[in-house]
């Protein structure tokens, strides 16, 4: 048998049909659904008189629109259009008989945090969702990617996706990370290296000692932003860390089933002599805590660097850099660590897990915020409960952070959590696009520890100075 990559193995195990031209029907093991990209898909099913083919494999949770303030169960807490969208998901979940975690359920949260937490996401699966950050689930060695609403409808109706295979890219992070450097710094640094289109046409497998050393939370952070590098999906081969995380989760297999699953999961790795279409290697020791300065995740530099000049770039990026500096209100040559911050946002499917909150709380312990406002939005009700139990919530509250309920919140600012014009935010989320966190809002992407450091000093800060 010819050697295979992990991607090849998962792909081969899920091809339900292959046409002569290589177009495949890929069988989907888990379909995650949220309120923003699904209403038109369910409507399509109704109009055609179709059912959901595999309701047991379909899991829905409202997350994008929901308020994160107390009393949100009250319909008045939402704007009319948000309420209509959430109500549509309520109704669709009921009518089509799919698994559902409504806002009132403690297990509700960001779809990409709920899936792994509940054990829906398992190694070797295919996972899709009408959301680009579905890449997150790749951390389990599951082939996971975002799809559009037409494809959501296609998966609901057929449990398959029409696909052609992507190419294989290996991103190896060798050696150990230095203190203060986190999974977020890895994933942003990779995008800095490849650019936001560098992964287009590829599925990335992240490997190397620095990746192996990461917890599941950290691995999810890394894979989450594979899409920001343009890749269809990011993958990390499952290992003992993965199996340990999965074991005992509500929807993970139990007993003999678990043992059978484990035996297969242990075959899910890239063979030594597998073919890679592209390989990138970064030394873990070379990665520093990073921040973004512009309006694309590829606009990333170590915190010790200076704001670049448009002349540092070539081609279309020259104009883009000019536009980004103007939008961000920054001057070339300015020290990144001199940039003053108004707001700090900790949360999102990138960095809204318990480990992220612990890392931020570690920096915040006994300190007060020096920014206008700071907000923590746990990724799920269960993350929130655990943080309460560990005393982390008190650290945030004592420091002056708002301690919110679970949802996507200010990552995409569809709910009331938004930046005002020119408000500058250090955010643990994944996109610094123009207007992403609010009209003319300015976003600097950072790790949770770096966000906490910025909250304490009031400017972008090298977290290593506070450790």
């Amino acid at each position, binding site marked *: 048998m010819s050697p295979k990559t992990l991607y090849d193995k998962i792909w081969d195990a899920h091809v339900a*049909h292959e046409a002569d*031209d290589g177009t495949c029907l890929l069988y989907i093991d888990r379909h995650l659904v949220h309120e923003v990209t699904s*209403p038109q898909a369910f409507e399509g099913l109704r109009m055609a008189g179709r059912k959901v083919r595999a309701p047991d494999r379909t899991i829905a949770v409202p997350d994008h629109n929901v308020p994160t303030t107390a009393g949100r169960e009250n319909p008045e807490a939402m704007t009319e259009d948000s309420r209509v*969208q959430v109500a549509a998901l309520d109704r669709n979940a009921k009518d089509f008989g799919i698994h559902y975690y409504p806002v009132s359920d403690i297990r509700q949260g960001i779809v990409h945090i709920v899936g792994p937490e509940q054990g829906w996401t*398992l190694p070797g699966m295919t996972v899709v969702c009408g959301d680009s950050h579905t890449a997150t689930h790749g951390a389990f060695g599951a082939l996971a990617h975002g799809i559009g609403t037409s494809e959501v*409808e296609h998966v609901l109706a057929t449990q398959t996706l029409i696909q052609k295979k992507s190419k294989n890219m290996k991103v190896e992070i060798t050696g150990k990370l230095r203190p203060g450097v986190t999974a977020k710094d890895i994933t942003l640094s990779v995008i800095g290296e490849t650019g*936001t*289109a560098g992964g287009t046409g590829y599925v990335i497998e992240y490997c190397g000692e620095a990746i192996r050393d990461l917890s599941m939370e950290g691995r999810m952070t890394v894979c989450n932003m594979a899409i920001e590098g343009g890749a269809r999906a990011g993958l990390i081969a499952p290992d003992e860390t993965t199996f340990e995380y999965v074991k005992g989760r509500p929807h993970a297999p139990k007993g003999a089933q678990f043992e*059978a699953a484990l035996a297969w999961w242990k075959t899910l790795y890239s063979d030594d002599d597998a073919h890679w279409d592209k390989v990138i290697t970064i030394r873990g020791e070379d990665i520093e805590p990073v921040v973004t300065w512009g309006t694309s995740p590829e606009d990333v530099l170590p915190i010790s660097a200076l704001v670049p000049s448009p002349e540092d770039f070539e081609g*279309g990026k020259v104009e883009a850099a000019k536009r980004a500096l103007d939008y961000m209100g920054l001057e070339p040559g300015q020290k990144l660590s001199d940039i003053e911050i108004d707001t700090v946002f900790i949360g999102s499917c990138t960095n809204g897990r318990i480990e992220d909150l612990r890392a931020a709380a570690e920096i915040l312990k006994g300190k007060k915020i020096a920014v206008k406002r700071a907000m923590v939005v746990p990724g799920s009700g269960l993350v929130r409960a655990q943080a309460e139990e560990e005393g982390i919530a008190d650290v945030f509250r004592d420091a002056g952070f708002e301690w919110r309920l679970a949802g996507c919140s200010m990552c995409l600012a569809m709910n009331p959590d938004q930046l005002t014009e020119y408000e500058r935010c250090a955010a643990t989320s994944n996109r610094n696009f123009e207007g992403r966190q609010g009209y003319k809002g300015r976003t600097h992407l950072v790790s949770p520890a770096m966000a906490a450091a910025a909250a304490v000093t009031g400017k972008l800060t090298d977290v290593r100075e506070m450790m």
Partner: protein
Amino acid sequence: MEKFETLTGIAAPMPLVNIDTDMIIPKIFLKTIKRSGLGANLFDEMRFDRQGNEIADFVLNQTQYRETQILVAGDNFGCGSSREHAPWALADFGIKVVISTSFADIFYNNCFKNGMLPIVMPQEVVDVLMKDAEHGSNARMVVNLEEQTVTSSDGEVFSFEVDSFKKHCLLEGLDDIGLTMEKAASIDAFEAGAAQARPWV
């Protein structure tokens, strides 16, 4: 789905790289449960000020580009969020073709589900077409999917590649779900086999 065969229309230049789906259709317009009507808010934050007045120098607000059907854009068009509202907004405005050196994967796929054709061309061709698009309504490009060509306003012909299955579906206006349902037996067989091999899934 509406068929796509040929299109002759005005092309607008948008040389900016990394035009993301948040730019194409900001999230406040995603709170709809419909597919239609999004064209009014296409590129909303670039096109209108906060009072809803048009920003005069934005390309689609210029007289000669009001009837734009083709966009010639910078690298990595459609990156970011998977929102299909982005192609819906473009199509609703009347834009059925986008030409760039590269597209983000999900956006690219979404276009084909909506009777739209994203065309990948090498940089030197995009440069030529970008220049051509600057001529506004005097420059009508012709896109021929069957022949896989784009013809500039002065008659220069450029070929492009497109996946044969996607091309077929677009030319015939085929519904993906209907096509897949014809293969239900294969899906049933796969499910039965997988239930044996991986019963825990």
